[in-house]
């Protein structure tokens, strides 16, 4: 089968659409979770959503909608437990992790459903997605993206510094709950694509990748969404082609592709951070300095813009970093700073 034939298949087109919208929505809300150092919250919500799916399977209601409701309730519970400060955020997450997963497996068994049915939701089943599933995915993902981008100034302020946001008159609790509910919606949106157990990866890994290279929040948000789309669509396409030779599931391919992107950008990020640390201006020097005396022979040139030594601002002049010394031009000689 040629690529053209593959992409003309209806199930493949549905899968591509779902992957596109999921890849856009999950990192959008994931950025706020990472900013609040709640990177694992998506995972916690994902585990709670397992119970939601099981309730759907047990009652015959749509597992997508029961998962949305149960995940949203779980997310708000996590947020409230965290806010009240009775338990650490991570302990609150852990409690819901285990309760959600155990409840889901138990209910699936009671309902007489096979584990394979639940597995579709645990690890994703992008290629068996129906038209109505695609429409629900597109609508929910659009809502998540519009709110995450439209309310970015407010959500940024609340996630960045909640005390300042409160004194600025923002309803911090309302915005926190909004983020929690949006995270729950994203989890259920991504459930069919990468599965509940891997959903957090699509929320967090693109953000972690983006921030290796970015300096501002807005570019991180935008870059994470682009990376999310590349990873989810790319992972789907790779798995579709690889499926000629072996059984390759789209969910894990998407997550591994996202991780590969991180592995490529991480060294670049390390280098960028190293470079910016070297170029940071030196602080005011209260100790004073002495005249450099050991470079007359090895020092045939004048320090300047093109001498090849790193120039770092220091107070009102420039120091040249030179074999681990800091040389400041002073008349005919160099001072050691």
């Amino acid at each position, binding site marked *: 089968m040629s690529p053209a034939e593959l992409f003309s298949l209806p199930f493949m087109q549905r899968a591509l659409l779902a992957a596109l919208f999921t890849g856009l929505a999950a990192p959008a809300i994931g950025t706020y979770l990472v900013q609040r150092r709640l990177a694992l919250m998506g995972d916690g919500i994902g585990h709670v959503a397992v119970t939601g799916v099981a309730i759907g399977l047990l009652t015959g209601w749509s597992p997508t909608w029961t998962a949305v409701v149960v995940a949203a309730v779980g997310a708000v519970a996590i947020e409230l437990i965290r806010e009240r400060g009775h338990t650490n955020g991570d302990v609150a997450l852990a409690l819901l992790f285990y309760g959600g997963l155990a409840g889901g497996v138990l209910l699936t068994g009671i309902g007489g459903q096979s584990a394979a049915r639940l597995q579709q939701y645990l690890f994703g089943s992008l290629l068996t997605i129906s038209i109505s599933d695609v429409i629900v995915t597109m609508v929910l993902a659009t809502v998540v993206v519009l709110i995450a981008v439209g309310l970015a100034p407010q959500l940024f302020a609340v996630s960045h510094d909640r005390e*300042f946001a*409160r004194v600025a008159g923002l309803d911090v609790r309302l915005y926190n709950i909004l983020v929690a509910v949006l995270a729950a919606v994203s989890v259920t949106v991504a459930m069919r694509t990468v599965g509940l157990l891997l959903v957090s990866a699509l929320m967090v890994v693109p953000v972690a990748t983006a921030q290796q290279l970015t300096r501002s*929040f807005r570019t991180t948000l935008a870059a994470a969404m682009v990376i999310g789309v590349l990873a989810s669509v790319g992972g789907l396409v790779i798995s579709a082609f690889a499926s000629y030779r072996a059984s390759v599931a789209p969910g894990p391919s998407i997550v591994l592709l996202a991780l590969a992107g991180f592995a490529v950008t991480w060294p670049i990020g390390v280098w960028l951070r190293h470079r910016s640390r070297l170029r940071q201006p030196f602080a005011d020097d209260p100790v004073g300095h002495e005249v450099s005396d050991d470079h007359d022979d090895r020092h045939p040139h004048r320090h300047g813009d093109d001498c090849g030594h790193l120039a770092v601002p220091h107070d009102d002049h420039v120091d040249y970093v030179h074999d681990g010394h800091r040389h400041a031009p002073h008349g005919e000689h160099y001072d050691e700073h």
Partner: protein
Amino acid sequence: MTTAAPTTPPVELVGGAVAIGGRPVLRGIDLVVEPGAFVALLGPNGSGKSTLVRALTGLRPLASGTLRLFGTPFAQFHDWRRIGFVPQRSSAESGVPASVWETVAAGRLTRRRLLRPMSSSDKTAIADALELVGLADRAKDGVATLSGGQQQRVLIARALAGDPDLFFLDEPTAGVDARNQRALAEALGRLRDRGATIVLVAHELGPLAPLVERAVVMREGRIAYDGPPRHDDGHSPHDVHHHETLRPRHGLPLEGRWP
């Protein structure tokens, strides 16, 4: 800067008390701050000075007493654009990089409406605030790459961007090197000249000392001294924890006005 009813005290706390987890931390606090005043809350660690500022901003609920901001009882107060809060620096760290400009832009939220793009006056205010703290050239840099003192100035610019009348600053000089402390003092001096009311918490005044008109010294959750600061031989009355060993060369008063 709005100048309506300039005689209404921006801060009026009567009989204020704060309990944290049922444990009384502040009690019997009466504090009225006049418009345009520059007040420093001083005292040793654990004396309640930060808690007092948090109570004044509503971050800590009062267990008893009444708080009025600009003459309005706190429960009815919604005019947040008149207040600029500069929290302790540690609260401004986050998991995703944020640029200096973005952080300062958050200060405009008191004046922006939901889902509206930023106006040109917002942008001017942000640029002015960065200019005033001397960081206009660092606007695009990540906050995390700045030194502690520069980060502190970013937080002041953020409060400044909302163009408030009343500033609360929680330990703006903590962990800030001498050079940045001077830059900070310069920025606060310009704010005062614009007519802003400033209430700040400090462990040490350092270069801020000449600006302070009134020192409120906290001790074990009560106000122990309230009056003009002492500047004898250049020292500020910040080290009250030394007062048991009264040493005149530290400029500590001996005439009994201190606790």
